[in-house]
């Protein structure tokens, strides 16, 4: 990690005549990553011309170009960099040998080749993306009130990515060149007609439109490994085929075009600007579905009533500026899936057998589903807008109830088909809630202004229905297959998305939970403690502390984590431990200015919700000897211990009560020697927080100074982002979602080796000539 600098420059010019308007802009961004060997650069330019041809016709053109350069690195070592323990010197001292094998599989935690810094330096990835887009529009005032507009947008993009692995970590160097190019086309035609000749109280407008989208991307790649040791990245990409050949692979893919086509209509009616009615209708077609499911229609209606304009409200007009009631009901569709999920596809893959490249054809592991259809969201909304005291106080309240049907999700399918999973319209969810926003201008004056904005959202999500037989539970990757219980995020009717499953913790089994038999050195669990059980698996020496240990099953012992076992079957019960998403969220913002100095402060908050602190749980996972020698998070320092250092300086394992009491005076958590990763409610933590998100102070230079150098406006400012966060969460940041290992399932609040949020400061200047 490092403190990184970033630069951002924008220059724009605009001008023209009455008939012609031009605009040109140029920007450049150079953003260093806070992780070494990473970053982002962007250069863009934009030219626009609007031209009136005659009274009825006008055209406009917009041309954009952008080049983005991304520099990335090897994230897997970097995200868990803290685990690396360069302690070879200590091992020599401790054991009189430099044999890292003493740590068994944990040797990787001390080997130089696992040094995340070395690994990151070894690995080099850069990707350049070029985009060009041209848009042209033609507007025609056909007759009075009728406007026809046709707009065509054409874009192309190219990418080139180079991945270089120096080979120190993987054992062999490799280069991968990936290129792709694509296009996108959008053509929209609209006809808008304001009905003429009506009395001034009535206003009717009708819109008819049609839209076509088309895009496609082709890609090719070349991979080679085993370049001569002397080769650098630069040489390797110049001499790409100079490798060991046997493992080289070339691949070319012509993309499947994604097409969509829509027709839509909208009608607005307004009476005296007091009563408003809107009806819309969309008929959307998508190439992502099978032919008989291409099309779906999505109607919607909305009405509004400006109550404050009613005559019987007149007496309130001295303090009430606006009161409006809104009501809407509508549907919309989503096709956020890849193309070709509905049909069976075979692809080529090259493999190496006995040093020879063999080309294979394989069907996908996804079962095609020709019955896939549009995911439909129905929204219902009731809202009130209000403003009073000369609009010093204004805001809105919205009540909504949205439900989404036929959610498109990946679900496992019957293995005997030969497929592993398929996409299906699996269920229905709903969101019910309130949105509240309020603004208050506390002070309005020439020199000093101060205003407060706040918003508050309450949202309750619920899974209304799950397709029978569809298993939508998720298994997160932090403990790979050694996770107990196996499913940690579950989808159940009646529970929201982001329901976390695990064991309900009651701390750990203490010495007081057992009777100790000094003769045998064994512990026997008290009868009243049998409503608790432990989970995971432990070294026989620990399990063997329990007098009832049969050499096979997992039994409680002093220091073992303690979980509820209501049915007293000796196994911890799987329970719902909480819901990740907070129901209460919002923010507030204070802004204002004093003369030429302006400032703003923005806070965000959430109340409730849970964070799944996998980082902490992972610190209690011994994972056999894979974690030997690894640094662990501070939780492990408070874990139950069994070893003490004797007078000779040797580590001694002692399980007698007196010794354990002495060793564990400051102990807060159970032992960290579980072979499995265990999902414990102890680390399903409250996600509430209050964050100072941004703070800006700006100063506008006096005009009479700047005028002399031809500058009409000049402002300098300082902005700080993510300045502090008040939270009870023991991890880094409660506002986190690490993407899940298993595709497609939402796992909100999952925190495992996530890229940390950075605190940033910006110093900038806006100058207008």
């Amino acid at each position, binding site marked *: 990690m490092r403190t990184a600098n970033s630069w951002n420059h924008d220059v724009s010019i605009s001008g023209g005549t009455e008939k012609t308007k031009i605009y040109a802009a140029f920007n450049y961004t150079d953003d260093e990553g806070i992780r070494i060997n990473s970053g982002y650069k962007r250069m863009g330019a934009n030219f626009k011309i609007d031209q009136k041809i005659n009274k009825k016709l006008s055209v406009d053109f917009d041309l954009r170009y952008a080049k983005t350069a991304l520099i990335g690195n090897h994230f897997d070592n970097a995200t868990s960099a803290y685990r690396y323990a360069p302690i070879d010197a200590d091992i020599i001292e401790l054991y009189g040998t430099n044999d890292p094998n003493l740590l068994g599989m944990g040797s990787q935690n001390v080997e130089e080749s696992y040094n995340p810094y070395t690994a990151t330096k070894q690995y080099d990835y850069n990707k350049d993306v070029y985009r060009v887009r041209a848009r042209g529009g033609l507007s025609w005032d056909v007759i009075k009130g009728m406007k026809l507009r046709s707009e065509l947008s054409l874009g192309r993009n190219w990418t080139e990515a180079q991945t270089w692995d120096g080979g120190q970590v993987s054992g062999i160097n490799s280069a991968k060149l990936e290129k792709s190019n694509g296009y996108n086309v959008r053509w929209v035609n609209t006809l808008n007609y304001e009905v003429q000749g009506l009395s001034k109280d009535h206003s009717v407008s009708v819109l008819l439109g049609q839209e076509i989208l088309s895009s496609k991307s082709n890609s090719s790649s070349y991979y080679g490994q085993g370049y001569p040791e002397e080769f650098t990245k630069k040489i390797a990409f110049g001499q790409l085929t100079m490798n060991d050949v046997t493992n080289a692979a070339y691949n070319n893919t012509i993309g499947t075009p994604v097409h969509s086509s829509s027709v839509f209509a909208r009608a607005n009616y307004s009476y005296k600007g007091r009563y408003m009615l809107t009806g819309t209708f969309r008929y959307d077609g998508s190439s992502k579905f099978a032919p008989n499911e291409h099309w779906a229609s999505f109607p919607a209606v909305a009405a509004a009533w400006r109550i404050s304009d009613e005559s019987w409200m007149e007496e309130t007009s001295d303090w009430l500026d606006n009161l409006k009631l809104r009501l809407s009901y509508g549907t919309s569709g989503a096709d956020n899936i890849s193309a070709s999920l509905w049909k069976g596809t075979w692809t080529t893959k090259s493999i190496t057998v006995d040093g020879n490249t063999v080309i294979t054809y394989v069907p996908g592991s996804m079962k095609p589903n020709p019955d896939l259809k549009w995911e439909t969201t129905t929204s219902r909304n009731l809202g009130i807008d209000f403003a009073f005291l000369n609009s010093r106080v204004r805001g809105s309240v919205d009540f909504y109830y949205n439900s989404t049907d036929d959610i498109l999700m990946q679900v496992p399918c019957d293995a005997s088909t*030969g497929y592993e999973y398929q996409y299906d319209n699996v269920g229905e969810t709903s969101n019910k809630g309130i949105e509240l926003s309020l603004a208050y201008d506390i002070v309005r004056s020439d020199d000093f202004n101060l205003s407060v904005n706040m918003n508050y959202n309450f949202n309750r999500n619920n899974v209304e229905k799950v397709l029978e037989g569809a298993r939508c539970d998720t298994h997160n990757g932090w403990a790979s297959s050694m996770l107990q219980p196996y499913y940690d995020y579950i989808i159940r009717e009646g529970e929201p998305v982001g329901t976390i499953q695990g064991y309900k913790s009651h701390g750990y089994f203490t010495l007081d939970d057992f009777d100790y038999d000094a003769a045998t050195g064994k512990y026997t669990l008290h009868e009243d403690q049998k409503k608790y059980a432990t989970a995971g698996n432990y070294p026989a020496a620990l399990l063997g502390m329990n007098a009832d240990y049969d050499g096979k099953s997992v039994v409680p012992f002093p220091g073992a984590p303690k979980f509820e076992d209501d049915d007293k079957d000796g196994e911890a019960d799987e329970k719902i431990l909480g819901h990740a998403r907070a129901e209460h969220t919002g923010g507030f913002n204070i802004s204002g200015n004093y003369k030429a100095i302006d400032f703003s402060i923005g806070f965000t908050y959430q109340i409730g919700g849970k964070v799944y602190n996998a980082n902490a749980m992972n610190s209690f996972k011994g994972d056999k000897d894979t974690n030997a020698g690894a640094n662990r998070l501070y939780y492990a320092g408070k874990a139950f211990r069994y070893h003490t250092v004797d007078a000779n300086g040797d580590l001694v394992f002692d399980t007698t009560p007196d010794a354990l009491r002495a060793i564990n005076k400051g102990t807060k958590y159970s032992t960290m020697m579980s072979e499995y990763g265990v999902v414990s409610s102890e680390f399903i933590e409250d996600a509430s927080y209050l964050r100072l998100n941004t703070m800006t102070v700006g100063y506008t230079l006096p005009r009479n100074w700047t005028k002399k150098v031809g500058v009409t406006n000049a402002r300098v400012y300082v902005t700080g982002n993510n300045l502090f966060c008040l939270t009870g969460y023991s991890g880094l940041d409660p506002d986190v979602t690490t993407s899940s290992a298993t595709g497609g399932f939402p796992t909100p609040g999952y925190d495992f080796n996530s890229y940390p949020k950075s605190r940033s400061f910006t110093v900038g200047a806006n100058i207008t000539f």
Partner: protein
Amino acid sequence: MKKLLYTTLGVVGAVTFAACDDFLETNSPSVVDADFVFSNTTTARAALEGGYEAWRSTANSYVFGAGLFYAADIAGSDIERHPEAYANQKARHIPESFYSNGTLTSTYDIDSYSSNDNSGAYVKLFDVIGKANAVIQGIEESASGKEAIAAGTQSKIGQMYGEAIALRATAYRELIKYYGDVPFATVFGEATGGLAPRDSIYDCILADLIKVEPMMYPVGKIPGVAATAKNYFSQTYVDGLIGRIALEAAGYQTRRSDITYRDGKGNEVQFEKLGQANANADNAFYARRSDYKDLYEMAKTYFKNAIDHAGSAKFYTVDPRATSKAGQVFGNPFQYFFQQMMEDDAAYADESIYEYPMQYNVSSDERTYSSGRPGKGGTKDAYPCKCYGQARINPAYYYGIFDPNDMRRDVTVAVTGTTEGTEVILPFTPGSQSNGGGLGLNKWDDNRMTKPNTIAQRKSGINGPYMRMAEIYLGYAEACAVTGDDATAKEYLKKIRERSFPAGLAKTDQFITDCGSLFNAIIEERGFEYAGEGDRRFTLIRTGRIAWAIKRIKDLTTAMMDGLQADGYYQFDNDNIISNTIYTKAVDAKSEKGYRLTTQCTDTTDPITYPGWRGVNDDWSLFGWTGTTTTTNLAIQGLFAPVADATALTNDGYKAVAWGSDLLTNRTEYETNLFPEYDYVSAPVYLWPICPNAVATGGFHNGYGFKDE
């Protein structure tokens, strides 16, 4: 003006509606369907290659490597055991030891070992079946395929069809072996809805194989395939597979009480039961089909065909190797097979009929890592790299059952492992690598490889040995014995046995007498031939010999422990004596013998070369080792008889090393936890539960008392 407007609207409308059906039907020449793939033989062949690759990766990673075979077969019989403490690896130790006589099936966490995220053996094997089904359908529906199938004689397409049929049969054979009754899918993409009785599946896949056998070519003679390659299913393989599956279909298996068993014709299967139903495991019963002899007849026919159509598969009775330049003498045709597997990556062993190919330094490889001589190296850049050593050998079997004259013993069992270029004793303390775990499997050893992978562990490039001539001979002998042809049975038993004994010491007739029957002798012989390779467990189950064998090894273990406890040593019937202490000394074998890697040893008094087939690579420095130790080898005294004069040995630089005493310290592990609670009469639950995802989507329930979730 209006005209222009209407024209414009007309054009817009036309674009939107008239063209939209075509417009929304998009495709790419890079994304093709089955019709395209099976439209010509080159792409159809590539589809078959895709099936092979699925099988190869499934076999390596989900069945054999870190899979079901890895967990139970190479660790759970009277010969094989696991390296770690029982409680350390319960997810695999419980199934390995028959779920404590079935008492743990109801509480066994069914996704604790076979994980549930579509990466278990069950799902992956069906993935192979799906790919095979697609190829089979594609060929059956093509004109050229129809012609070749109707002709029923050798042809290129017939060969390809036969390979696909063999691929499907191979995957079903593994599925039935581990899960018992499974769904039977023959159409790619179609769900079958429920379980099919295993007998009906066996009958169907056997009929398929018999149909395609004449359309195929013997190994080494497949048109378009290199004569040296053995990574394709040949006629020889199909003959062997028919024999193999017929023996298993004829054998005893543990069956569910909630299924009506029917054969391939739909008739209810009549059973001969053995022992008693297992009340702990939903009354599962242990039985074989009463028409088992018909299947034995089938096995006999096709094993004989395999011998007659052996193609490039050889069987050596004499070791073809000359004495090495350094002076190593080989003289062990049995070991030659394993040595050939450890040579050039692209080479196949002469005795092999089929090996699934593994690529050096590419994907995870179980030989030498889990099936091989244990070694304590780093994960990379080590000499050799780490060998965990999952396949271990029961000490009582090594000492008490293996004939001391049997040349297979030292090839099979490792007393020593290696670490950083030096030889170390393998202690009996539970553990892994060469830190513990006891006697290891010696058949594959990085030290013996032509090009050991010192870059990374578990990437040796050694292929998976899936079928070789020894199995054909032993299977043929077994089928002959059951069907009354004792003379031929004995002839083939002798071929296997006598090449591994010095002349005159095989004493086959005495061996048959000692075993109680010719049939028993053949099964025992198979144990010696395949020890440590994971064949034993299912062979004992299908032959009904499991209870006898487990009881024998447990009793022998108890006697050995009692002897060690009382006297500090124990003498077995073959005169081998295990002692609490042995003596070892690091020596420079290079200066004493001229080499560091030892071979067949005939001088039982030489502490450096006896037991044979150990030591370290002759010159690790050729692979980058920078160590300077010259005393790389271990001289061992007292391994098979107590030392006469310990003081003299100590004066000579030998050190006392705990040996049998470590067994005593870990008596629970070696004795009590060896198939704990098994009562020798209840149906043995050797099967695995099917993972929750597959149960839920497959619409059936797990049997044998397992949970569904």
